[in-house]
């Protein structure tokens, strides 16, 4: 009688790794860091120039939200124009 061999295998993981096992590179793509780093540099410079007019709780968090709302579509538009020429 023919016997079939069943090999024991470790369960195959599907989907992404759990967050607590993920590396920095897996969680933060470079484009993500780029947008926030650019925002941080601009906000830092604005802070030096305008001090408490900018470095306050009303303007500060709003600056980052508006930046991320606007920057990616503006960047895509610029890249389209550059590549289109």
């Amino acid at each position, binding site marked *: 009688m023919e016997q079939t061999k069943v090999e024991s295998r470790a369960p195959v993981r599907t989907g992404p790794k759990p967050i607590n096992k993920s590396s920095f590179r897996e*969680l933060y793509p470079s484009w993500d860091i780029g947008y926030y780093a650019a925002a941080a540099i601009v906000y830092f410079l604005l802070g030096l120039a305008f001090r408490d007019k900018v470095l306050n709780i009303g303007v500060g968090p709003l600056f980052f939200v508006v930046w991320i709302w606007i920057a990616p579509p503006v960047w895509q538009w610029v890249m389209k124009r550059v590549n289109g020429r």
Partner: protein
Amino acid sequence: MSWAAHELENFWFQKHLGMRVSYLGLLLGAMAPDFLTKIPVYGFEFAGIVLRTDNPAQFHRGMPGFGFTSSIMAGLVVAIAVYFLTKRNRGWFWGTWIGYSAHAATDMFDTAGTMLFWPFYNGNISVGAWAYGAEEGKFGDAIAYFSSLGFVMDTVVLALVVIFAWRVLSRRYFLSVVKPADPAWGLMERKLRMPERVQIAVYRAFFMYGAVRIMSWVAIVHGFEGSPWDLSWGGPYWVEPFERW
């Protein structure tokens, strides 16, 4: 008074409490204790009308004054109100109470301290690590704070988040933990037509603000103003002791 720790410590709590709290609740709680007091403490002038208290320390932290707003029990009252306003959302209740209490506990480290255990104990509890400098005005307070152990406090909280809780700022963490824990994010998405990247920006905004605020003020205070460092206990030396009540 802390200049960045209140914004940053929420991410530390978020890491340890996960889906049991609402991040927006934590944020509300962390900001709420100073809602009533910050403007009169530093002074505000509009159309010739000056709004400023004679004794900022007493008004902000004392009794009579609004010192009771920096206490765990005041946080409970606010959290109960938030619980009913959010249709009995437990995440918002715990978030608000923890954020509020953490703010009161953090402010305990300056020389004025906070009425942390009001109404059971009406005295101020103070560690006295850096001088309460609101009498110096907002700019003077910034110079004093970022020259003292207050700067160390903010930097330690920032380092704790960056070194031990950096994953909580990721998109995946937001989508798998922060957003499912709080229906307010879905509401923002639907009512404000807020794209996902902007919701994540709202979540990360106070981290970015807190971190860059530390860097900017340190550059202003020590680079442009040339203020000396005084990391002695209770410093900096040039801040006059506040008027006791």
